[in-house]
């Protein structure tokens, strides 16, 4: 049995780097598109609302793994010759945009209607109403759920391993196959995820408690 030395740990650290990169891309990209989704989902136009409702329903009603597969093979199909990691990043961005869009939709709708009406009475136009009045409050309300989704996304990036992308989980699988020490390797991999996700979860729970006492 080979032992787990600095080389193996370095390989896992490389995988961890990709896990964090994928999460970051998914969260930032998903955040930008998610905002558009949330705004369209709460727009006055019924057609926009219906389209985004369908978009969210599809992403929430299918496995993330399938979304990865379909996007991965889909981009090749439409003739785009792009790197595997870019295809995976696109899939995570789309996935995150649907979930964040739904979370922020809830936040926007939880802002009292009087706020929008007051903004209108003050003569603010749509952009200003959203940017200065509604969205800051909506983000505050949806912060716990947003953090919760971030944790979900970090864990979700592990599925890129099944598509063959070498992030933390896949790196763990490779090291495990080389060293025949699955117990140690997967314990290390699990611990790495835990150390990233747990503080975020605690932070999410704390913001939720604070929000509850603030609104009570």
């Amino acid at each position, binding site marked *: 049995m080979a032992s787990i030395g600095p080389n193996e740990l370095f390989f896992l650290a490389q995988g961890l780097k990709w896990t964090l990169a994928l999460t970051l891309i998914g969260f930032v990209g998903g955040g930008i598109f998610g905002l558009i989704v949330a705004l369209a989902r709460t727009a006055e136009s019924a057609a926009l609302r219906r389209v985004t409702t369908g978009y969210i329903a599809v992403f929430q009603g299918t*496995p993330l793994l399938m979304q990865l597969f379909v996007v991965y093979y889909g981009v090749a199909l439409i003739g785009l010759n792009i790197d595997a990691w870019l295809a995976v990043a696109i899939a995570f961005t789309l996935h995150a945009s649907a979930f964040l869009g739904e979370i922020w939709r809830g936040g926007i709708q939880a802002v009292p209607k009087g706020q929008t009406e007051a903004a209108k009475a003050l003569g603010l136009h749509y952009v200003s109403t959203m940017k200065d009045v509604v969205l800051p409050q909506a983000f505050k309300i949806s912060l716990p759920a947003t953090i919760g989704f971030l944790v979900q996304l970090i864990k979700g990036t592990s599925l890129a391993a099944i598509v063959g992308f070498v992030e933390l989980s896949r790196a763990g699988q490779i090291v495990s196959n080389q060293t025949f020490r*699955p117990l140690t390797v*997967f314990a290390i991999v699990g611990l790495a*995820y835990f150390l990233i996700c*747990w503080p975020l979860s605690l932070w999410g729970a704390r913001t939720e408690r604070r929000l509850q006492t603030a609104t009570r």
Partner: protein
Amino acid sequence: MSYTLDFSAVIERLPELLLAALATIGLALAGMSLATVIGVLGVVARRSRFKLLRGLVIGFVEVIRNTPFLVQIFFIFFALPQLGVRLNPTVTAIIALALNGGAYAIEIIRGGVDAIPKGQIEAGLALGLHRGQIFRHVILKPALRTVYPSLTSQFVMLTLTTSVCTSIAAYELTSVAQKIEADTFRSFEVYFSITLLYLVISSLMMGVFALISRISFNYPVK
């Protein structure tokens, strides 16, 4: 480059896929039932007088909720044999789904139990009910009713998570799709079709959950 979509491979092997879809539903149902049991027992243990037991439950919930399902299933399938526990893929999948769903169920059900007003429990005591009766009728039943929407949406997510069980080659929809893909090289067509199948499965499940809710929770609250 021009590529023509060809779904004939999918259509030809549709019976195989539908059978695998049933296996997916089976895995999901087994996972959900065990998760509910773990959820209720976990909540009971979390309210226990023993600090150690409470700590264990909290630790279990935090570890499961903050690590990916893929790593959990790998751990059970690849690491446990090192400790002498060897399980077949289907059993591994069910255990992993039950533990994962169970951890979330504990958190969700606990939220409902905590929301039961103290006066209701005292009313139960005043009526002469004993502890078991109070837990069952005064605490658990109303709590389950309160958390039913979040619990069932968690279960729909658990159903979608079953696709990850393909990583240990458990028999379910995704692993069968991967086999068909390897045979036919029609990757996009195969995955696109089973994505639709998953959409049908999750919609069906949501429909059934809504129906159950209407039948079993139709008594008035106040």
